[in-house]
């Protein structure tokens, strides 16, 4: 039995927990043309929860490809194919839990809350992160080999726990590795990537897993049959709408990110979101595929947003990163990003 006070002062130093979740993840990409080869495993992973032991599944459709992030159980379902690209690392999801601390003055949600405490320090230590925001929470994926650096970097700020078989075990630096091995490449100044801000409005939503069967046909339609021939990704003008749809089923929780056009195809009363019903705009980061080794990309975006206390969701995919910001803040965000690109040296 523990008595806990959520009074700010008492736990001012460390009122945040960082959980290293019990999933070992692979980041893969399925090409648009090769999707037909993977419909069976994808349908199984999405709809037949009881038939698979996969506990972490995320599928994001972008104009370029389908990014599938899934745990090793789920990965077994995907047969190797020329259409399947697999990032070689094992990724571990991190999750920040604030200890019921309501004192934070910021009303912002998403990566903004962890920009300074997690993302910036990791960027400084040259740890590459893969972000996955859902309706429920934000997952920070790091490579398994970087874990010791992550722990030693974040130990100052967080109580770190590793989840093993449903138990949270406290983790300290020495548990992870004997010595601190730093990622090199100190001097490299992060590249400032071009951004793209499409016009469509997005919503972040959730769904009762029990009602998933009732939207199955719509979901299949949106996921697999959306790219009609007329909408060739290469030809779509950059300032127009960009196809983006994300579905994730993680530990039994469903999260959906879709534009308003896709949302209209779903029954109105089944999907739910925040009572404020806010809409989001997307900022796509990267002109060329970003790869998995470069670090500081998320920090580049999240830091200025945090400075301005603007909420943001952030979804990395195989090729590009995507930030979602509130619709009402898009103007200031655009200004800020343009400013950043005009003065790259100061960032």
């Amino acid at each position: 039995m523990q008595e806990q006070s959520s009074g700010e002062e008492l736990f001012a130093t460390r009122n945040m927990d960082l959980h290293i979740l019990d999933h070992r993840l692979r980041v893969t990409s399925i090409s648009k043309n090769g999707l037909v080869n993977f419909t069976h495993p994808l349908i199984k992973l999405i709809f037949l929860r009881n038939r698979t032991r996969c506990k972490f599944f995320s599928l994001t459709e972008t104009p370029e490809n389908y990014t599938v992030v899934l745990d090793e159980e789920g990965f077994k379902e995907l047969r190797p194919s020329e259409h399947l690209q697999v990032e070689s690392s094992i990724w571990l999801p991190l999750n920040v839990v604030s200890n019921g601390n309501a004192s934070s003055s910021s009303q912002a949600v998403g990566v903004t809350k962890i920009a300074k405490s997690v993302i910036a320090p990791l960027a400084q230590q040259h740890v590459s992160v893969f972000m996955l925001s859902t309706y429920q929470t934000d997952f920070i994926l790091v490579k398994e080999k970087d874990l010791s650096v992550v722990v030693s970097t974040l130990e100052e700020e967080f109580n770190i726990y590793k989840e093993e078989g449903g138990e949270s075990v406290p983790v300290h630096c020495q548990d992870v590795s004997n010595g601190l091995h730093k990622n090199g490449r100190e001097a490299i100044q992060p590249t400032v990537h071009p951004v793209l801000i499409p016009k469509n409005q997005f919503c972040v939503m959730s769904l009762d897993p029990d009602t998933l069967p009732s939207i199955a046909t719509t979901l299949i339609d949106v996921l697999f049959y959306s790219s009609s021939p007329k909408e060739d990704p290469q030809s779509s003008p950059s300032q127009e709408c960009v196809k983006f749809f994300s579905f994730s089923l993680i530990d039994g929780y469903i999260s959906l990110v879709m534009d308003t056009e896709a949302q209209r195809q779903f029954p109105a009363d089944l999907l739910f979101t925040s009572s404020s019903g806010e809409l989001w705009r997307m900022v796509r980061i990267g002109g060329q595929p970003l790869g998995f080794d470069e670090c500081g990309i998320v920090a580049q975006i999240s830091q200025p947003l945090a400075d301005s206390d603007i909420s943001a969701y952030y979804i990395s995919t195989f090729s590009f990163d995507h930030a979602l910001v509130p619709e009402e803040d898009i103007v200031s965000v655009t200004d800020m990003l343009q400013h950043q690109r005009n003065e790259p040296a100061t960032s």
Partner: protein
Amino acid sequence: MSGSKPDILWSPHHPDRYVICDSELGLYRIGPVGSAEAKAGTLPLSEETAATLLAINSDTPYMKCVAWYPKHEPECLLAVGQANGRVVLTSLGQSHNSACKELVGKEFVPKHARQCNTLAWNPVDSNLLAAGLDKHRADFSVLIWDISSKLSPETSVAAEKIRLSSVDLDSSTVVTKPLYELGQNDACLSLCWLLRDPKLLLAGMHRNLAIFDLRNTSQKTFVNTKAIQGVTVDPHFHDRVASFFEGQVAIWDLRKFEKPVLTLTEQPKPLTKVAWCPTRTGLLATLTRDSNIIRLYDMQHTPTPIGDETEPTIIERSVQPCESQIGSFAWHPSSQNRMVVVSATNRVMTDFTVFERISLAWSSTTSLMWACGRHLYECVEDSAEGVESMIEKDIATKMRERAQSRYGHDTVQVWRNHLLAGGKDAQLKSLWHDLFYILSVSHMKQCAEDMELKLQGNVQSVVYSGIKNIVKTTSGTTESRRCWIGSDRQTDVLRYHSEERCLALRLCGWISRGTDTDVENFLRSLEQEHEWERAAAVALFNLDIRRAIQILNKGAMAEKGDLNLNVVAMALSGYTDEKSSLWREMCSSLRLQLKNPYLCIMFAFLTSEPGAYDGVLYESSVAVRDRVAFACMFLNDAQLPRYIDRLTLEMKEAGNLEGILLTGLTKDGVDLMESYVDRTGDVQTASFCMLKGSPGEVLKDPRVQCWIENYRNLLDAWRFWHKRAEFDIHRGKLDPSSKPLAQVFVSCNFCGKSISYSCSTIPHQGRGFSQYGVSGSPTKSKVTSCPGCRKPLPRCALCLMNMGTPVSNCQGTGKSDEKVDLTRENKLAQFNNWFTWCHNCRHGGHAGHMLSWFRDHTECPVSACTCKCMQLDTTGNLVPSDSS
């Protein structure tokens, strides 16, 4: 209850209504099957009850959980938690109720939509409704809504910083401001208000159980655990809480909340519901997925969780209310141990009452008691004296009565013991007569061992070993053919003689001494007892028809005599030995119609061929002793042992005490007695009977020892301590080996030697306690010091005299009791001098002084001592229930 999985809720106030919720809400009324039969559409729930569907509500889709408003008014108000986290108030079949109307349709909307997992109404402040939600980022997961809160947003003081777009606050029925927000950054899976304080809310959060206090919401008490589902507080024991995780139930005590007080055995399938029985303390019902049984855990004996040292005992059992798989169940709020069960599919309902385990207690005085649920039944033997009871009294009652009438203690006229036993039991009568004959024969032999010396082996053992063994050794048998007495007609009946046969006849009681075959004494005694038929039969078997006729005539003329005996006498007088006579023919067929067995065997004897007397020998209503005596007279050496063996076996199997005549007090006799005890439970008779046996193997038999010990225990249980003592004395006389050795010694405080032992070591005297004024006259001897070291014995705490000094005068006896017999008074006086002391404080003194002290006091007589000596003795306050 998600999707198709149903749940049941009983109305908190209508004992006959419940709601089933699956995709919709259905209100049912339960009633007896007869009255409901008239209406169509009733669903049978059990053999006696049926349910009628009263109303359906399908206004609220995506229901996740439902809770019934706990107060009387409005009576059918339900809160429904939905998949998107909204809580809607709804109602069933209450259209006219205005109080309800105001609330129905009211919605409580969380800031961020996510599943509502659980709902709980505050049992006291029923305006408060707690909702447990899934986790959403940094939002709160436990929201407490005030259902009476004014709907307009402006009245909600200090509106929180919710950025509400105007999209959904269209209607005035939506409340978005909870009264309390708890459990930030967490998920809530189950909730219950604590009954010990309605301001406390217990919540099963993600990986911890937390207690929130509404008076100080910044504080919470929590314990990390996985067992966070289905938290429920025991309605009978407000500090006890159950929760579960997958297949395991954890029981918590809120006063010792660090870890579960116990965890129940894990089930292979995940649990779906755990509920305390509201009508019975400590009964927990659990249900697992895909199961058709409900497991019950009875935790009656675990009221306090005093750590590990008191390992609680739980009785686990399962009940199967119906064939199909169970979706959910709900205990009836008031009807004892009753529940309604709904199947996992098709909404098949079953009304089911868990049958209580029955506990039974049987007192040593025949009354029987059993408890079932809240009922206590007592079964007492009908002891109406005057009425001739149809049913025989219970053996325990009989034994008690017999113990009081000193049954078994008449060691001189042993046969009289059957009179002490009430004189009604034929078997006991036979038994005690057998023992009487055995004892008198053996006694006689000890005195005059003249011709019996010829018998092989130990005389006594032969006598004790029963007729079966006596006839086995028969030798030198002579046969004789005699005339009918008083007639010169020769009989063709062969009669056999031998010493063994003669001894057997004596044991049967037919003849009294020597080889004299005269039965006249026996006949006279039978006549005295008005056993006319038996006497006539004995006379006839001794070939004295005239005497037999004479006896029958006498019987017919006697008071209340049966005149038919004259008719029998007449028939008897017509006896002819001609084989083909009409007399013979008629007698042999009509004899079977005679009711009296002795009359029957008389004619059987007369009409049968010589040597073939089955009609006599196998007439089971004739006393065994008479049949055996008959056999000894008329069966030859080959037939006799065969017949006796057969009869012995029959008696042993039936446990018939008459068979003791045949078996004697041998191992065979113990076998027979064993089946008698098995049949009747009469350890009393068994004990007394076997004590009469010659000391030796019979008494050593473990069965005999068992009967004796049981009889002693029985006497103790009846608090017949004096009877027990008497029995032990009696036993000690007959079986000296049973006398217990001294177990308690009084040792000297100074030298540590036993004061009685040390005197016995003094060679010239074998002194016992008698010297210490314990026995004999007070003036006889005074030893007040240890014989070993000559130091004084301790002093009596009351009279302050050294022990060994006799009690001066018996203060207890009043003047009126002066005529009490002196022996008894003497004995008491002796006991008054006895040493006694408390094992706890070690103070003591003369027994008489102590007894009178503790009659009025509870504390030790030594002034500084606060020991409650008498209360330490559990039997000290009991009073013997026999009076001697």
